[in-house]
C-alpha cells in the first residue's frame, strides 16, 4: 500500500469533500480512530513481540534519581532515561516557560553507557536549556498530579487499592508538558530514523517515549509504595493499571506545526477519510461488525459519562453528545434502519442529518473501528518525505486557474474587515513560546509568523488579477518576492486537497483549540479537557495494554476506554469477547 493507492479513493462518492472536512468547527470535534498513531504503535509492538525491560533504577527513598526503561524491537533497542527531582510546588506549571519539572526524560537510541547518562544528567533536567546529541531521539518532561500520585502510593503502601473515583477522575499519575523530537535542541533529526520500519508512520518515536513514560509513572508509584509499606504493599490491580494513562498539556506549539506541514496533514486526513469511505461503501456488512457497533454505542455512553470537564463549551457539547448517542441507540433498535444495504452509509447519513459535529465525528470513529481488516493498511500512507518545491515552469494563467478553483474559501474572505485580521501568531522571546496575539492589544505584529494562509492567498489573487498572463512566473516572483512562499504552497497543495484548513486563522472568532484537538485526535489522545481557547489537557494511552499485556489477543481493543474495564467491546479483529 502506498500513498498513491490511497489516493485512488479520493473520487469515491462516499468520500467527504475537503470543504466539509477541513473546517475548524469539524476539526475541533475530532476523535481518535484505529488509524491514530498510538494505535498503530501498539499494534506494531504486539505484532513484532517487542520486549520491555527496566534496565536500572537508582533512586532514593522518595524516588528521586535516575532510571532507565528499554523497549527492545526485533532490530534495535530504545531506552527512556528518566530523571526525577523534588521541586517547589509553586514552581509546578504546565507552561512552556516553566523552569523545573518533577521528571525529565530523554529517549536514547540504543542502551546508554554511563557516560551517556552522566552527560544527560547535566542536560535533560534543564530541558530547553540543555543541549542534546544525535544519540538522543526525544526530550520530554512531566509533572505529577500531586493528589493522585500521593493517594496511590499511600494506598498501595497500606496494601489496598487507591481511591478509584479520584484516580479515574484524573486518569493519570503524571502529565507531560512537552515532548520534543525531530532535531529539537540538537536531538537526532527525523532523517536519521525515518527509514526504520518502526519509525515510518508519524510520531512513532515520540509516542514510544510517551508509552515508556506511562510505564515509568506506574512503576514508580508501585516501587515507592513498596519502599514505604514493605511487605504489606500491593501493586495496582491489572484493570486499574491498564486504565491509567499519561496526561498531557498541549498549548499553541501544535498549531504552527499543522500549518507548516500541509502535505503531511493531507496524508493524515486522506487516510482517515478513505477509511470512512471504504466502510460507507460496504453494501453487505462484514459478519459481526454491526453487532460490535451496537455494543460500542453502549460503551461510549459510559465513556462519555466519565468525561468530565469544567470548560462550559465542552461540557455543553458532552451533554449534547450524551443525548445524541442515546437517541442513536434508540434509532438503531429499529432493525429496518440498519439491517439494509449500505448500512454504514445509512448510519452515517442519519447522524450527519440529525446530530452535532461532536457526535458525527465520534460515529466516524466507531464505524471505522470494527473494520481493521479493510482499513489498517492506510496507516502506512500517513507520512511523507516530500519537500515542497517552487515550480518555475508553471504559467501564470495556470496559477490563476488553480487559485480560482481551489482557494475560493480564501479569496472570498473580506480581509478589509477588522475582525478578519484580528489575530496574529508570534514567537515570544520566553523560550520561543508560540503566542496568539490580538492586533492593537499585543506587541509583535511586525514579527508575525507567516501562518496567514488565507490572507496571503487573497493578496496573491489581487496581484494576479493585475498581472498579464504572459509574465513568466519566475519573473513575477522577482518583481514580487513576497509571494514566493504562497505560490510554492499553492503549487504543492492544490493536488492535495485535504492539506489546508479552509477557514480564516486570523479571525476574531478563531479558536486555536480546534487545531490542537484535530492533531491530538490523530495522535490518539482522549478526554479533551480544554482550559481555555488556547490549551487543553488530554489523556494518552488510557486503556492501552501495559508492556506485559501486549501479547494478549485484545491488545488492540482500547478505544474509548471505560474505567475499571480491562478492554472496550467485542472485537472482530481478535478473539476477545468480553461483554461490556
Amino acid at each position, binding site marked *: 500500500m502506498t500513498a498513491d493507492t490511497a489516493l485512488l479513493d479520493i473520487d469515491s462518492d462516499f468520500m467527504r469533500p475537503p470543504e466539509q472536512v477541513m473546517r475548524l468547527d469539524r476539526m475541533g470535534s475530532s476523535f481518535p480512530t484505529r488509524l491514530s498513531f498510538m494505535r498503530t504503535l501498539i499494534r506494531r509492538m504486539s505484532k513484532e513481540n517487542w520486549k520491555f525491560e527496566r534496565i536500572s533504577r537508582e533512586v532514593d527513598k522518595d524516588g528521586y534519581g535516575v532510571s532507565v526503561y528499554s523497549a527492545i524491537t526485533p532490530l534495535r533497542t530504545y531506552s527512556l532515561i528518566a530523571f526525577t527531582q523534588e521541586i517547589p510546588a*509553586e514552581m*509546578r*506549571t*504546565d*507552561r*512552556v*516557560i516553566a523552569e523545573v519539572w518533577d521528571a525529565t526524560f530523554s529517549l536514547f537510541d540504543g542502551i546508554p553507557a554511563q557516560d551517556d547518562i552522566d552527560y544527560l544528567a547535566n542536560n535533560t533536567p534543564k530541558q530547553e536549556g540543555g*543541549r542534546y*546529541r*544525535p544519540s538522543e531521539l526525544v526530550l520530554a518532561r512531566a*509533572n505529577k*498530579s*500531586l*493528589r493522585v500520585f500521593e493517594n496511590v502510593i499511600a494506598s498501595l503502601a497500606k496494601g489496598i487499592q487507591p481511591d478509584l473515583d479520584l484516580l479515574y477522575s*484524573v486518569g493519570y499519575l503524571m*502529565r507531560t508538558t512537552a515532548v520534543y523530537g525531530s*532535531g*529539537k535542541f*540538537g*536531538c*537526532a*533529526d527525523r*532523517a*536519521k530514523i525515518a527509514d526504520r520500519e518502526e519509525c515510518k508512520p508519524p510520531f512513532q518515536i515520540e509516542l514510544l517515549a510517551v508509552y515508556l513514560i506511562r510505564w515509568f509513572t506506574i512503576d514508580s508509584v508501585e516501587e515507592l509504595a513498596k519502599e514505604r509499606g514493605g511487605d504489606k504493599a500491593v501493586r495496582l490491580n491489572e484493570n486499574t493499571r491498564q486504565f491509567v494513562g499519561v496526561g498531557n498539556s498541549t*498549548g*499553541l506549539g501544535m498549531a504552527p506545526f499543522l500549518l507548516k506541514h500541509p502535505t503531511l496533514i493531507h496524508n493524515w486526513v486522506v487516510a482517515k477519510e478513505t477509511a470512512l469511505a471504504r466502510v460507507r461503501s460496504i453494501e453487505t456488512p462484514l459478519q459481526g461488525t454491526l453487532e460490535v457497533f451496537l455494543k460500542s454505542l453502549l460503551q461510549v455512553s459510559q465513556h462519555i459519562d466519565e468525561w468530565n470537564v469544567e470548560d462550559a463549551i465542552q461540557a455543553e457539547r458532552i451533554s449534547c453528545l450524551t443525548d445524541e448517542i442515546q437517541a442513536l441507540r434508540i434509532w438503531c433498535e429499529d432493525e429496518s434502519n440498519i439491517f439494509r444495504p449500505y448500512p454504514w452509509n445509512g448510519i452515517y447519513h442519519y447522524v450527519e442529518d440529525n446530530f452535532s459535529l461532536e457526535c458525527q465525528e465520534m460515529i466516524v470513529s466507531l464505524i471505522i473501528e470494527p473494520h481493521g481488516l479493510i482499513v489498517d493498511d492506510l496507516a502506512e500512507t500517513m507520512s511523507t518525505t516530500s519537500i515542497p*518545491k*517552487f*515550480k*518555475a*515552469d508553471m504559467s501564470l494563467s495556470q496559477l490563476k486557474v488553480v487559485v480560482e478553483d481551489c482557494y475560493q474559501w480564501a479569496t472570498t474572505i473580506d480581509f478589509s474587515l477588522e475582525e478578519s485580521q484580528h489575530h496574529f501568531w*508570534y*514567537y*515570544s*522571546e*520566553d523560550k*520561543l*513560546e508560540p*503566542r496568539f*496575539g490580538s492586533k492593537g492589544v*499585543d*506587541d*509583535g505584529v511586525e*514579527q508575525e509568523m507567516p501562518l496567514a494562509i488565507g490572507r496571503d492567498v487573497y493578496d496573491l489573487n489581487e496581484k494576479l488579477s493585475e498581472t498579464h498572463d504572459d509574465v*513568466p512566473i*519566475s*519573473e513575477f*516572483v*522577482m518583481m514580487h*518576492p*513576497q509571494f*514566493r*512562499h*504562497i*505560490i*510554492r504552497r499553492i503549487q504543492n497543495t492544490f493536488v492535495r486537497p485535504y492539506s489546508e484548513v479552509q477557514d480564516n486563522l486570523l479571525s476574531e472568532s478563531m479558536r486555536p483549540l480546534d487545531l490542537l484537538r484535530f492533531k491530538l485526535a490523530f495522535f490518539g489522545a482522549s478526554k479533551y479537557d480544554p*482550559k*481555555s481557547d*488556547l*490549551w487543553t489537557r488530554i489523556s494518552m494511552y488510557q486503556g492501552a495494554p501495559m508492556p506485559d499485556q501486549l501479547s494478549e489477543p485484545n491488545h488492540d481493543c482500547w478505544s474509548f476506554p471505560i474505567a475499571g474495564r480491562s478492554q472496550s467491546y467485542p472485537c472482530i479483529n481478535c478473539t476477545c469477547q468480553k461483554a461490556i
Partner: protein
Amino acid sequence: MSKSDLTISLNEVLFYFTRAAFGVEVPIGLSEDFARSNIWISENGFDPSLCSLEALDNLDSEASSLAIKFEKVKEGGHLFCPKGKLLSSLEASASCVDWVEVNSANGELKISNVDSPLLVVSALGANQCSGLKVFWVDQDENQFQVNLIDNEVWEILSSSTNPIELSSNADMLISPFGLGDESYKGKTVKTFNLAEEKLNILHNGVKVRENWQGIYDYFSRCLVKSSAESRASGAGAGIVDTD
C-alpha cells in the same frame, strides 16, 4: 543556544536560518529557500554560518540588495542587480534555480556581482539541479569551479587555498557540465558524496563556530519581547498546576 561552537541538528539549521533571513526582512519564501540551501551546505560538512552570515550582513547594511533583473542574452540569460549594489545571493540563488528549471540547463546563465557564490551552488544542489558547471572568480582573484555531476556527487576545483565558504563578490557563470572539460588541469579537486556526507552529519550533527552568534542575533529579531501582559495571555497562564 546563542553561544558559538555548538553542534546543531539539520532541523535547527532550517528553523534558525529561515528566521535569521526573515530577521533582515527577506520575504519568507526566499528565507525558506535560504534555509534549505544551508541544509545542503551542512549536509556536506560545511559550517553553514560561515558563508551565510556575510550574505545577511550585506543585506542588513544594504551593501547588497534583493532587487534583481533578468535579461536574455545570446548565450542564455543574465541576472543582475539593477541598483548597482551587490546582488544578494539569497535572491540570486532562487532565481538561478528557477532559470535552470525552466531552461533545463540549456545555454548559459551569467549572474553578476553575487555576494556569496557558495549559496548559489548550494541552492542548485538542494534543488537537485545536476549536470551543471558553476564557475566564478571572486574579488580576491580566487578561481572556483563546482561541478554538480549528479544528485549524489559533486566536486570543487580550485587553484586557491582559500575556503570556498569565504569566497565572495563574484561574477558567476552556470553552464552544462561536459565530461571532456579540461578545467581540471592544475587545480585541486575535492569530491563530495552527498549520501555519505549526510549520513555522517545525521550521526554527528552540524558544527557551527564563531559566526553562529551572528546568525542567532538575526534570528532573535523575529522574537517578540515578553511582557507581563503577554505572559498573562499565553496558553496555560495563571494556573499553578498543583492538582
